[in-house]
């Protein structure tokens, strides 16, 4: 079993916390993404799992073995953990050929030469670059380097695969191919994988579970669908997929607590069941994704009346910037539109947050230019 457990893990640099009491269980054989903007602590977390950084508090265990205990000052050295790390830069050793790169970890493990050769060939075949065995890293393309880096970690069969933004150095087309390839490889090997990324698309499409980090803290941990459809905080709603936040107040509640909200601009929406409970009269913010809005007549029920400020042509559609009661709303339209329009909402999907939960994120807090 190679599950990874983090229990109240913290990392302080002086008084500044890079990671704050983070608790997380990565089940054996699953693919988990650590997702967040730069500076959210995801790379620090990965480094602590790998043993390259030392937690100042909390415990980390891998496959039931304690590898770090911040309070006790206990730390298993990285080389003893038997993990596989693919850093963002791939970090291929420039003075070694591809086969030597893959063979070095095996040599360190004192594997006999014959078995080593066989293992190198296997690993290179697995990532489909057997023909490049005698090249030096600088003679490879970005995509090939990435495969060598992965082969190098797979060859010694680590307990856990740690990937630090391995796709970010590839160009857009190659990245998509690499993404499919990586996912099917992981499914095939059933190797526990922790994947660090700031790209929500990568995280959603690759992962069994996504951990969204915000300022060193775990904002939400769940399946990609959970994260996208039922964001736990305004930050998650905004970071994953982008959201408009429209302020209003709860005016009524249905039989199962479904709130009806009157927005500041006057439109009234009868929403579906929410994860959180709201009182009548409470000021709230409705998180609305662009794809939940469609242009409709102005005065139907569950329609938001929007004044259009500007358009942006993006090929297959227009990105539209409008306001409702002074709150910015983003949506898209197939046709060029102008003036005032009504937007029909997918009311079952709209997520409500109490207005004071909107802290540093959301359009209200965006710095004024």
């Amino acid at each position, binding site marked *: 079993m190679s599950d990874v457990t983090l229990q109240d893990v913290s990392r302080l640099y002086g008084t500044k916390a890079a990671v704050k009491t983070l608790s997380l269980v990565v089940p054996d054989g699953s693919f988990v993404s650590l997702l967040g903007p730069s500076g959210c602590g995801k790379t620090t977390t990965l480094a602590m799992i790998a043993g390259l950084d030392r937690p100042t508090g909390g415990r980390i265990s891998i496959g039931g073995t304690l590898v770090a205990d911040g309070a006790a000052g206990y730390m298993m050295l*990285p080389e003893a953990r*038997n993990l596989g790390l693919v850093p963002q830069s791939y*970090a291929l050793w420039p003075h070694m050929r591809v086969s030597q790169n893959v063979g070095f970890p095996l040599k360190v493990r004192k594997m006999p030469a014959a078995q080593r050769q066989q293992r190198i060939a296997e690993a290179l075949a697995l990532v489909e670059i057997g023909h490049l065995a005698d090249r030096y890293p600088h003679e490879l393309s970005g995509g090939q380097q990435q495969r060598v880096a992965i082969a190098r970690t*797979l060859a010694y069969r680590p307990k856990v695969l*740690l990937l630090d933004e391995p796709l970010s150095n590839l160009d857009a087309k190659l990245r998509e191919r690499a993404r499919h390839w990586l996912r099917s490889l992981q499914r095939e090997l059933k190797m526990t994988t922790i994947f660090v990324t700031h790209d929500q698309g990568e995280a959603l499409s690759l992962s069994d579970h996504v951990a969204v980090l915000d300022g060193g803290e775990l904002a939400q941990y769940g399946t990609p669908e959970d994260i996208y459809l039922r964001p736990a905080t305004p930050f998650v709603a905004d970071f994953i997929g982008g959201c408009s936040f429209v302020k209003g107040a709860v005016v009524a509640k249905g039989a199962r607590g479904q709130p009806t909200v009157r927005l500041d601009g006057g439109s009234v929406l009868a929403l579906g069941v929410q994860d959180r409970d709201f009182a009548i009269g409470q000021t709230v913010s409705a998180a609305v994704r662009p794809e939940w809005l469609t242009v409709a007549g102005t005065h139907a029920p569950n329609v938001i009346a929007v004044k259009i400020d500007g358009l942006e042509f993006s090929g297959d559609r227009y990105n539209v910037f409008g306001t409702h009661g002074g709150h910015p709303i983003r949506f898209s339209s197939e046709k060029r539109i102008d003036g005032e329009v009504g937007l029909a909402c997918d009311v079952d999907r709209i997520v409500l947050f109490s207005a004071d939960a909107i802290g540093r994120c959301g359009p209200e807090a965006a710095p004024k230019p």
Partner: protein
Amino acid sequence: MTVAQTNDFKIPKTPLAVRFSPSAVVPWFVIILTIGLVLLPLVPIGYQALLDRPLYDAGGKLTLKNLSDLFFDARFHAAVGNSLLFAVGATLIAQLMGVTAAVLVGRTNIAGKSLIIALVVWPMLVSDLVKALGWSIMYGPAGYVTQFASLNLGLPAWNLNSLGGMMIVGGISHAPLAYLFCIGAVRAMDPAIEDAARTAGASRRTVLFRIALPLLRPALIGSTFFNFIMCLETLSIPLIFGKPSGIMLFTTYIYMNSVQAVTQNYGIVAASSFLLLAVLLITVKLQRKMLGDTRRFITVGSKAGRQKDFELGAFRWPVSIATLSVMIAAVGIPLLGVLLQAFAEFFSPLIPYAEVATLDNFRYLWSRPIYTRALVNSLIISSVGAAVGVVLVFMIAAIVTRTRNKAGPALEAFAMLPRAVPGMIAGLGFFYAAVLFPPLGWTRGTLVILIIAFIMRYLPLGLGTLMPSMMQVSADLEHSARTSGASWLKTMFHILLPILKPSLLAAYTVLFLQFFKDYATAVFLYSPGTEILGTVMLLLVWDGHTGAVAALATVQVLLTFAFIVTVGRLSKFKLYD
């Protein structure tokens, strides 16, 4: 797929765990060693400066008499004034020549560029003492060229044995340093930055003065201060050109009051050294302050595009010929002078060379065991010392660039401090330290103390050579080695050291050459049996044995070139590229 199967081989020494890791101890050892090494010579100088008798005599009392003696010594005042004048003048000349060369080579289509590039750093490899000697042989008052010019061309004889003459010699011998500091910055300039200024409406002139030169500021300030310090600490030039005409500089004042004095005045020597140190440390401090945050000068952005060379047009060849002529006159002819003098008993345009050609100078050197001994000692110190130095430099660079050790910045600052410590004063400090601290006593009269002093003196140079390349090696390379199962030691030996091999060899070469040509650091430290090339040459200069010095200098220069050729063959690396 087979790869996913269970582990069928053993994981190394599980569980390898630490509560207290050795990687936390080694850095502290290096930090204490380095700070100790740097402070060891400096503290005793301050102490001796305030002591009423030599520090090895019992019963010493603290006093300000040394400082007040200095204050009322008119010769000291003259030396300080001369030193400052000389340093300012020589630095200006060096900067003007070096920066011009850097801009010509870096940004124009000057003819014969590769030849100039190949020749321009060679003077750095030759000791100042040898260069000054060559200048004196050729251009001094009785020099070959001076005589030739006044006899055959009727030119008035010039006098290099003056403050102005010393400035010219000092300026020319330090110009390559200014060139080296600036050429990198000139080449690294992103042409897009200048293009942006041009399209924004700036003229070529405005671009040069408002964009290009300000971006060169760190290099200009850095080299100016470095050269100023080098000029303040130079000993050979005032000894060869100042002594005959009675012009004394700071360094010759110290030298004559100690090494060449009948009774050494320890108080005066320590107090003046202490003052010189203070001036230099303030200068370094000032430089850091003037530079501020160097990131302001780093050009961010695209991979440096192809720079457009400034077209010199019809001046392409004349400028090239002028540049080469200056180089030949400044370095080629003086070195030729040393060579010719080495094989002559008397070297003058008045007597045909064939009549004076002789091997007597070399026979003289061979007949006295001290000279062969000095050569062997120099080779030992250079080869062993440079090796020890590279190990220390590597460890310091590793701590500064590879660990999050809180003392890292302080370690770097201390390790860079000796660039403000003249070799002679470092030597004096170690001499005192060996007297003052019994654990060091055994090193007196051995080559060990010379090696220690040399390493301290050239620590900044070694770091400057190794650190940039070390910063370029991504820490990810070591991290992935560690996570893939290699211990710290294996990571060092199989990953970091092989990647750094060319840079380590470069650092070794640079240290070797410095140790081999140094003459000032050892002045207070050698004793019968531990003479080195530099010190015996200095004594021969003092006694006026020009032929013998020239012969020794020839041997030194030839060995230097042989060393560089060998290293070049071994590794195909370019020094100072």
